[in-house]
């Protein structure tokens, strides 16, 4: 049995939107509508979907930035060696919990405080959690800078974010995120705002660090090709729900859900001689699965750790 670092069950995030100036009715927007997944230690899950599908909302709920409206999220607790529910964690416990979960943001220009030096930015987590003494902390900062490829450290420590390039800033974000050696990191499209030619170097860095520090990623992106490069498993999100989840190559070679098929076939291919055929949406395959398993089960196992949502999506795709 694989040990899981995080277990998400029936996560929900609903928003109330008033129906207009004179209306007393409140509409409910289901940004995240009953999603479930597990991530084992040492593995990464890609959460792929288009804008508005709920992937960023999921990320923020898992990091306890915005409270969820329903569902259970359990994290592995090293001390008790058991899964622990993150609800009702109070001050000290909450702070300890926060050592193990981190987030890397998309915008390299806005994710570092422009008034802080690189040194202070990377020191902050150590200061907040009172790790070691001042010298230990400074050594740790120099060490992590070397790991992310920003050497010599003395050239970067006194600088301010605006003096660094986009790629360098993301490396600083990664350094700051990983200096506490968290077990779980949510990555919100960290390379989509970087130049294409340097994306791979950042992604390779993240992959190496995942291996060395035993970190699991929840990698959020709209780019399926990037998810392929970074993750063992991919979950496809649409309209607040996970419509399909499977191992990466299995998903790409054998997509079942009409949304996934449409998504994959819409991606441009960097090969002029490739004849890309866009999938014509056809609900037959999905109907067959629903008929076989019934809609009582929201997610059904079609074998090979490959799950499909039986939620009715007719007319939405």
């Amino acid at each position, binding site marked *: 049995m694989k040990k899981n670092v995080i277990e998400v069950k029936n996560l929900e995030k609903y928003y109330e939107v008033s129906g207009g100036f004179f209306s007393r009715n409140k509409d409910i927007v289901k940004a995240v509508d009953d999603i479930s997944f597990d991530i084992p230690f040492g593995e990464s899950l890609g959460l792929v979907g288009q804008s508005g599908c709920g992937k960023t909302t999921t990320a923020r709920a898992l990091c306890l930035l915005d409270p969820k409206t329903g569902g259970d999220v359990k994290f592995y607790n090293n001390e008790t060696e058991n899964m622990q529910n993150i609800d009702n964690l109070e001050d000290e416990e909450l702070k300890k919990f926060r050592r193990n979960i981190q987030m890397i943001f998309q915008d390299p220009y806005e994710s570092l405080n422009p008034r802080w030096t690189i040194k202070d930015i990377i020191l902050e987590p150590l200061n907040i959690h009172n790790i070691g003494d001042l010298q230990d902390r400074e050594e740790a900062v120099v060490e992590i800078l070397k790991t992310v490829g920003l050497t010599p450290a003395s050239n970067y420590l006194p600088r301010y974010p605006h003096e660094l390039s986009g790629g360098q800033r993301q490396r600083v974000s990664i350094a700051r995120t990983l200096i506490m050696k968290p077990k779980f990191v949510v990555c919100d499209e960290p390379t989509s705002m970087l130049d294409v030619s340097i994306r791979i*170097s950042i992604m390779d860095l993240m992959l190496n660090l995942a291996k060395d520090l035993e970190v699991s990623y929840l990698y959020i992106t709209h780019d399926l090709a990037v998810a392929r490069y970074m993750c063992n498993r991919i979950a496809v999100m649409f309209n607040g729900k996970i419509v399909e989840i499977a191992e990466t190559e299995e998903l790409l070679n054998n997509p079942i859900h009409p949304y996934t098929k449409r998504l994959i076939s819409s991606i441009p*291919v960097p*090969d*002029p001689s490739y004849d890309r055929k866009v999938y014509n949406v056809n609900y037959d395959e999905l109907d067959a699965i629903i008929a076989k398993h019934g809609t009582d089960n929201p997610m059904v196992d079609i074998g090979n750790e490959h799950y499909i949502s039986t939620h009715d999506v007719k007319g939405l795709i």
Partner: protein
Amino acid sequence: MSKEVLSVKNLNMHYETLSGDVHAVKDVSFSVKEGESFGLVGESGCGKTSVAMSLLQLQADNAKISSGSIQLDGVELVGMNESELRKVRWDGISIVFQGAMNAWNPVVKVGEQIREAIREHYPEKSKAENTEKIESLFQMVGLDATVIDRFPHELSGGMKQRAIIALALSCDPKVVIADEPTTALDVVIQDQILNEIKKVQQLLGLSLIYISHDIAVIAEMTDQMAVMYAGSIVEIGPTEKVFSTPKHAYTRLLLESTPSVVGEKKKLRSLDGEPPSLINEIIGCSFSPRCPDPSSDCKNPIKEMGLVEIEPGHFADNCCVDCG
């Protein structure tokens, strides 16, 4: 044998700033034939948007074309004054900007904004004629005629983008420049928009200049392409040839650093560092500091740079031709 519709020769453009002159476009030459689709690919700061802006001379106040020629159907555009240029813009060449979705005036209906553009160039046409024209344009890009009376905020991102394309076509231009027109859109909508663009191009016999950092889109959309780095073109030729036999190290790197969802999972390569500053004069090969396999001759400062023909129609920068 289709004729040349746009011909750019030795274009040089720079921005005057407090820190010095930024040479954004260095000795760029290319041509686009009638009905042809030409792609310009490169990363941030390579100069591709500056080239686009130069074609329409819509750059910022501190931008100056220092030398070179831009000929549209044989008519020289460099040196024209503002009133002459205004006749050419939209009528000869039009553009779909990056972030064009936000180019709409939020308080004016969409149809009215397009009508304004048409009125600029064809003041003698009646309102009925214009409306008819807009309706046919909308049909071409897959928009319902009711959109004419809508405000921009009532439309989705994809609809706004299609309307932008209609706007760009409203004065029957010969050349349309598309500068990253689908960057902010979802993949599925992007695919639809790209198909619309292809369809429209064939229907109207337009020439298209497609600018993007996404090499996959360039592969699917263009017949001819050029790769830009640090303000100059480092490789240019038929799209198929550039993809099958890329000669320049930068081109090769771009191709090898793009992950794909089809085919085998490959090992990808990457670059480090940043593009060189465009303020100081670059001596020798501009890519050599970052080139993953430089030869001993690469750092030679007195090496003569320039495009060399590798095979018919396919040119690459001098430096990499020798590397092999």
